[in-house]
Structures are given as structure tokens and as C-alpha cells.
């Protein structure tokens, strides 16, 4: 298997996938998310039409597909930011369809947005602190009782600074988020989503606009996140990133799942090649990480 040759292959996550068939809608050993018949159309256009999808707990799953495939729409629907026309889905065994966006996040499924949503007139640190869950000072009357929440606030601040350091944003902590660059905003949004302590993070193109040197350390961070037990579902276009880090890949095209499998399965899947990857990826040794020629493949 060529995937074994990938440097830094995330062994733990792939072991969890060992029982899963590389087929559309295949069952997973211990799915954290299970979706059935999820549909969303805009007028005549069916943006999402997923019959069955399971995401294995404790793995990094990539959601890939051409522009307009419905990846972001699927994220929106699953996280309560858009209404599905039909479909049911459960997260950690609880029914999630029809749940409001903030409740989805409170129950452990936190997403980021493709177009970053930094809270521009708050400082970077305030952005982080805002995300901390279960704050006593967040209630209207609780706000007046400072003694009740200053301890909690200090603990949150410590955690926020740790995360900011990992994302190389600690020097910027007192700047307003509006002064950050596009890539820095991506980093902030990712760090902020982790402040919520989610069971699963859903990252919509987290690497877009982030410089290559930082991408490497971000990937390491995502891997360690997975190793600590967080499930990661992410949308990405960079094939090196996807092949290098994913335990499982789901391919979406025109709203439907057209393939699922380990990176090696996807790389050799004729349907995926036709719909998304292009012929180049078919060549046996063209898929290795660091192959510069392939970097932008798959992006029109």
C-alpha cells in the first residue's frame, strides 16, 4: 500500500478504520456522526443529497470534492446553520437534525467557516475567551458577581494563551482581530473553535491562505488533536495535505458521496479521478507527499 510510505502516517487513526469497507455509505466500527437521507436544494439545484454517511470517532476524515460540490452546504446543514429539506442525523447517539446552531456547538460539534468570521473589534484573546464553554459570567445576572467568575476566567485565559502559542498567535493576543491578515484569521478561527473543547471539529478549508511552513505545524497539531481523542472532519483542496493526514476520505460531487475510503483507495478510484483528481493522480508514484507538481491538482 502506497499510503504506508507516506511520511508521518497517522497509524492510530488508520487502525480505527481497519474494519471499514472503502465503499459509499459504508458502516464504521464506532461512528460519532451518522447521517441519513440528508438533502438540501436551492431552487432547482440539489446542493446536497447524501444517502448515508458515517464518520468514525477519533479519526481525521477529509471531505473533498470540486468547487460547488456541496461540502460547505453539508457542513451548514449538519451544524444547524442551514435547514435541511430532508434527512436525519445523530451525533454521539443523539438526534441532531432540527437542532439550533448554538446547541449543536454546545453538544460538542463545532465548525469553522470557509469565509473566516473573526470578531474584528474584539482582541485576539477576547475572541478566544468568548469561546470557552460554561462560563458563569456569561449569564446576565452572573456578570455582576465578579467574584464568581474571575477564577474561571483566569483558567480560561491560561488555556487560551496556550492555544494561541501553538498557533503562533501569542504575540498578537492584545491586537484587535480586525488587524490580522487573512491567514492569521484562519488560524485564530481554528484555535477559537478548539476553545469550545469539542468532541468533533469541522474545519472548512483550514489551510487556505496559510503559509506552507505553518501548514506543516498545523497538520501536526491536527494529528495530535486526533490522538488526544478529538474527531476531525475537514474540507480541503490541497491533495498533499489530504493524502498526508487523512485516515479516511469522503468524496462529494454534485451533492452526492461518490466514493469513500483510505487515501490509497481514493487515489486509485477511477470515478474520483474523473470527477475531481484528474488523470495525473492515476500514475502510481505521483501521490507522495511533497510532490510539488501535484500541489494544486484538483483545484480548477
Amino acid at each position, binding site marked *: 500500500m502506497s499510503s504506508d510510505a507516506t511520511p508521518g502516517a497517522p497509524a492510530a487513526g488508520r487502525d480505527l478504520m481497519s474494519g471499514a469497507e472503502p465503499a459509499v455509505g459504508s458502516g464504521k466500527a464506532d461512528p460519532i456522526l451518522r447521517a441519513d437521507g440528508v438533502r438540501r436544494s436551492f431552487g432547482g439545484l440539489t446542493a446536497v443529497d447524501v444517502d448515508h454517511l458515517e464518520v468514525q470517532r477519533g479519526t481525521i476524515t477529509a471531505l473533498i470534492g470540486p468547487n460547488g460540490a456541496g461540502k460547505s452546504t453539508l457542513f451548514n446543514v449538519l*451544524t444547524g*446553520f442551514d435547514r435541511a429539506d430532508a434527512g436525519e442525523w445523530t451525533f454521539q447517539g443523539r438526534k441532531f437534525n432540527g437542532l*439550533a*446552531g*448554538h*446547541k449543536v*456547538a*454546545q453538544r460538542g460539534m*463545532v*465548525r*469553522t*467557516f470557509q469565509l473566516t*468570521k*473573526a*470578531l*474584528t*473589534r*474584539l482582541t485576539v484573546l*477576547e*475572541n478566544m*475567551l*468568548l*469561546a470557552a*464553554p460554561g*462560563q*458563569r*459570567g*456569561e*449569564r*446576565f445576572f*452572573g*456578570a*455582576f458577581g*465578579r467574584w464568581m*467568575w474571575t477564577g474561571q*476566567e483566569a483558567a480560561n485565559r491560561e488555556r487560551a494563551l496556550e492555544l494561541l502559542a501553538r498557533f503562533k498567535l501569542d504575540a498578537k493576543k492584545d491586537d*484587535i482581530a*480586525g*488587524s490580522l491578515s487573512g491567514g492569521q484569521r484562519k488560524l485564530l478561527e481554528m484555535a*477559537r*473553535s478548539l*476553545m*469550545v473543547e469539542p468532541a468533533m471539529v469541522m474545519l472548512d478549508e483550514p489551510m487556505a491562505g496559510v503559509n506552507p511552513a505553518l501548514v506543516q505545524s498545523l497538520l501536526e497539531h491536527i494529528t495530535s488533536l486526533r490522538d488526544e481523542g478529538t474527531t476531525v472532519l475537514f474540507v480541503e483542496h490541497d491533495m498533499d495535505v489530504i493524502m498526508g493526514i487523512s485516515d479516511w476520505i469522503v468524496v462529494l460531487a454534485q451533492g452526492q458521496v461518490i466514493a469513500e475510503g483510505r487515501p490509497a483507495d481514493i487515489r486509485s478510484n477511477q470515478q474520483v479521478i474523473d470527477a475531481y483528481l484528474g488523470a495525473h493522480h492515476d500514475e502510481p508514484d505521483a501521490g507522495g507527499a511533497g510532490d510539488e507538481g501535484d500541489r494544486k491538482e484538483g483545484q480548477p
Partner: protein
Amino acid sequence: MDIMTILALSLETAIGPIAAIYVLAAIGLNMHFGYTGLLNFGQVGFMLVGAYGVAVSVTTFGLPLSVGFVISLGCSAVLALILGIPTLRLRADYLAISTIAVAEVLRLVYRAEFARPVTGGVYGRNSFADAFYDANPLPAGSYGVGDVDFNAGELWLTLACWGLVALGLVMTALLMNSPWGRVIKGIREDEDAVRSLGKDAFTYKLQSLVFGGVFGGLAGAMIALNQQNIHPDQFMPQVTFYLWAMLLLGGVGTLWGPVVGPVIMWFLLTLFDETLRGMASMDVLPFLATSDSGPLRHALVGVVLMVLIVYRPQGLVGNRKEMLVNVK
């Protein structure tokens, strides 16, 4: 008319009860717009229910003034809920339209003939504030320096109004320096982001609307005490727009903006009015009748706002860098 008298009069207005009442209402509006980003174009509606809450409770229902105050705050909270629950899940413009319409509808309903047994219709209500002035602990006499002076009753009211302002400022400062305030400011920036982090934006917006509305109601109640008579047609939409102008002048989304704005604006308005009146009476401006000061006053507010937008869009105490962060 000499300049010292005019200045003294302007100063008296700027630190007097009317300015303080506008500060109270502006503190509410600042919570709505300045911190939460809610477009409330009907703050005068909250003032109206606040004023009538006191007046109607005492005159129509014979309740004590203190109970009237509680009712007045209750009415403004209920008005906030009525306005907020249907609109705050929708886009921001729905609240804006609803507030401006509801405030005007309230005025028309309160002045309607069918409401006359309760509200007094177009004649409004009077003599309900005696209990407040009877409770005045200050000995009778004249208080002040030079031409700026208040009698005991005026001073009592003025102190009460500024006392409430102090309360409003302390509450705002505590709220906005807490995690609650952080979420509120987050909602102003991007509601969806806040929601994606597990915060129920709707509830926060509703709380903000109630808080600011109650301060609007408090302002109304103090108007009632100040005038000792109220009638519906003093609660016209332009009161809201004066408030907006004052808040923008002071600085939106700052603690002191809603204090500085009304104080300076009332100083300027009085200075302007009195100067015009003085000039008219001295026949310096023969084409100007004394009654022209009303429309000219509106023009002045417009000029102040224009100058402000060009030279200090952040207001007098605002932070320009923060203000312009989204303008690139």
C-alpha cells in the same frame, strides 16, 4: 442679553435634569446599538411607556408613586419582549422597522379617544409627582453658583436623575467588562460566529434589548417627574433621532459616550437657541422671528452630525482605529 447669562443658562441645561434624562435614554440606546449592534429607532416608545407607567398608575389607579415606578419599568421590559421575540431571530432591519413603527403606534394609541379614560387622551395626565417632591430631604432655598441656580425641588430631581445615570454607568461597566459583555460585543461583530461557538445569540440580544429598554423607560419616568404633567405628543419620533445624534456625538459603544453626547448637545442647543433669541430681540437679524429657532435648531443638529462624520466619525470619546477597522 449678555453672553454670560447665555452661557450660564446653557450650562444649567447641560447639567440639569433634561440632559440627565437624555443621558439615561442614551445609555439604553448605547447598549442596544453601541454594544450589541441592534438598530432601535424607537427608543422614544420606551420613554413613553415609562412616563405613562408612572402617570397612569398614580392618577388612574391611585397607586403609590413608587409602585408606579416599578410598573413603568415592567412596561418597558414587556415592550422590549414584544418587540424582540418576533424580530430578533430575523435580520437586523426587522427590529429597526418594528421599533420605529411601534413607537409611533403607541403614541397614537395613548392619545386616542378610546384610551382617554386611562391615559387622558390628548390631554395626558398631570399631578402625579407630588409624592416625589414631598420626599425631598433638601431644605428649601436656592442652590448654585452665580447665574447657574436650582431651587430645592429642581436640585432634588437633578440629583435623582444623575444618581440613576451613575447606576446605569456602573451596571454598564460591570456588564461590559464581563464574559456577558464579551458575547454581546461578539454578536455586534458577527452573530453566526458567536452562535457557532455555542452561545445563544437570540437570548443575549433579547437581554440587551430589555436592559436598554428599561433605561429608556426610566428616562420616561423621570420626564414625568420633571414636568409633573405629560401628554402623548411630546413623544414624537424626533426624540429618538435627537438621542441618536447625541449618542453618535458622544461616541457609540463607549462607556462615557452617552454621557458626553447629550451634555454637549444640550449645551450647544441652548446656546444656539438663546443666542438666536437674543439677536432676534435686539433686531440684529431683522429677517428672523423668535419662533424660527425651532427649525434652525434641527438644522444645527444636522450640521453638528455632518462635521462629526467628517472629522470625528468615532464620536468625541470613541476610538478611531477600532471604528475604522472594517473600512479598508
